[in-house]
């Protein structure tokens, strides 16, 4: 069995990508199982999807514990300790990351010794389609890695995109995108998960705790700051203070309390809190807020 774990953010089309990969594998005569896993259906929130491909019936369900192939559609997830997309990586896992960074920089930073494929799929997607739905690029590159034929990718794309209501002219552009990604990616040797050393954990017997501990309550109030939402969007607002009239409109309209007003009355953005909705940019009456591509820390 080959196991593929895909990671991205809501709105990037990861679910669509997993369906395309699953369809392609299925129409090649394999047994297939694919599922998305999302905590909340939210744009920008981390989402993962799992695809299992096998010659024989698949006796597994749910999250993949050990991946033959890990596909990371949003490199900001690598910096999140909570999301940890490298968790299922073993010695033989092939890793594909969508990033504009240098592969050796990624290797060093995240201590990766595996076969690593790095492509700037975001740039390819933006160059070809208006809507940056990454899922198509991701699916196509993944299928090439797995050794499938492009005709199958094209066929699956057409039906999957039609299913989710994409218009015909956009479907053609997406096929173009898929072909481009397909051609740019090389095949890789993807190992089946057979004799992998599975990490086991001993059973413990739960003991009774005082209900103050064991009731699902939170007494550490206002602790959601610990969650870094800063990586939800690629673009962040930057204020040109020379033109700012301190009208406070940006502060007022931010749904996420990401602005504070400093002692001089100027708005200051908390980039760890900003999800990049960009309402502030649109509402600013003097147009002094511009969008800048976010760099990873």
């Amino acid at each position, binding site marked *: 069995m080959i196991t593929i774990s895909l990671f991205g953010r809501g*709105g990037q089309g990861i679910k669509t990508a997993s369906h395309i990969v699953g369809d392609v594998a299925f129409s090649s005569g394999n047994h297939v199982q694919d599922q998305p896993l999302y*905590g*909340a*259906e*939210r*744009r*920008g*929130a981390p989402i993962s999807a799992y695809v299992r491909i096998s010659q024989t019936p698949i006796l597994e369900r749910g999250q993949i514990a050990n991946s033959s192939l890990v596909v990371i559609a949003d490199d900001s997830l690598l910096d999140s300790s909570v999301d940890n997309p490298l968790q299922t990586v073993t010695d033989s896992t092939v890793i594909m990351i969508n990033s504009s960074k240098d592969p050796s920089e990624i290797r060093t930073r995240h201590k990766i010794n595996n076969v690593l494929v790095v492509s700037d799929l975001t740039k390819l997607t933006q160059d070809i389609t208006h809507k940056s739905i990454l899922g198509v690029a991701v699916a196509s590159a993944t299928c090439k890695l797995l050794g499938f034929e492009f005709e199958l990718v094209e066929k699956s794309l057409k039906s999957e995109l039609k299913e989710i*209501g994409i218009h015909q002219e956009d479907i053609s552009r997406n096929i173009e995108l898929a072909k481009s990604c397909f051609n740019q990616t090389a095949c890789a040797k993807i190992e089946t998960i057979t004799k992998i050393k599975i990490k086991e954990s001993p059973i413990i017997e739960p003991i009774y705790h005082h209900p103050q501990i064991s009731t*699902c309550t*939170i007494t*550490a*109030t*206002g*602790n*959601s*700051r*610990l*969650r*870094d*939402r800063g990586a*939800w*969007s690629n673009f962040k607002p930057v204020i040109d203070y020379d033109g700012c009239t301190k*009208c*406070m*409109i940006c*502060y*007022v*309209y*931010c*749904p*996420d*309390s*990401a602005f504070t*007003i400093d002692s001089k009355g100027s708005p200051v953005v*908390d980039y*760890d*809190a900003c*999800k*990049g*909705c*960009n*309402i502030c*940019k*649109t*509402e600013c009456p003097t147009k002094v807020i511009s969008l800048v591509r976010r760099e990873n820390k």
Partner: protein
Amino acid sequence: METKFKTLKDIPLEEELVPGTMICAGCGGALLVRIFEKVLGSNVITVNAAGCMTMLSVFPFTPFKSSWFYVAMASAPAAAQGVRDALDILIKKKKIDTKDNLKVLVLTGDGAASGIGLQSTSAAIHRGLDFYYLVYDNEAFSNTGFQASESSPFASATKTTTPTETYEGVMSQKKDLFEIWRAHKPPYIATISPAYIKDMMQKIERSSQFTGPKLFIANSPCPPGWGIESDQVIRVANLAVETGIWPLKEAVNGEVRHTWMQKRRPVEEYLKTQERFEHLFKPTRNGEIINQLQKRVDDYWSSVTK
């Protein structure tokens, strides 16, 4: 009544919700809750019915500096009554100090408020419960992926009312929750909009002079559900008011007064901004339905005198 909120700059600077929630980027509802809680201040318990805002607090994280209590979809007003009554009992018996008192805010979406939760809401208003009630109306069951609710507008697309060649979306009229509540004659009801923050703050302030139900319905644009870019939320909310589709009004002991009464723009300008109405324009413009929608808005305003 003299207001503390003469301009937007009078907005309280204390944040009652800290950042870091998993609510969608650009959510109209999130902005509404942020402002509402700012005006109410500290010492609030927010009692929540199932909906998008349930995701504000997910173990082990919560953005609330004050208290939060997630209940069930149908019974947030009933639980709110239980909290309010118990607080009153404890204060009367001096088991807690008056400074430990909490303002009770019920927070629900339109799905809970106009359908499954209508019964418990009606009962709470009928009993004269002293509470605030904020409905973020994104016009569908959004948390579950945007299926049609009793608040979904005529001819809008949702996941359970997907337009086809012969089907134009929701075929029922949006439920008039304001009038349903008004029939109970609570002390205060208002409609509010995230594009009219000053109006919103003043309304919350005005409502606070009353003991009893203080009810608010808020227009809550939803980027993934309505099919708009997240940065357009305020623009769209603005158009909802300026086309007359979302009247800004209040009712004090049942007496209605509008707080926006200007020349209206054609509803088409609002409809055009959202993918959920795209089927009315592509592949061809559906003049019949657009006219129906315009007429309904015109009829409403023709009967408005104040």
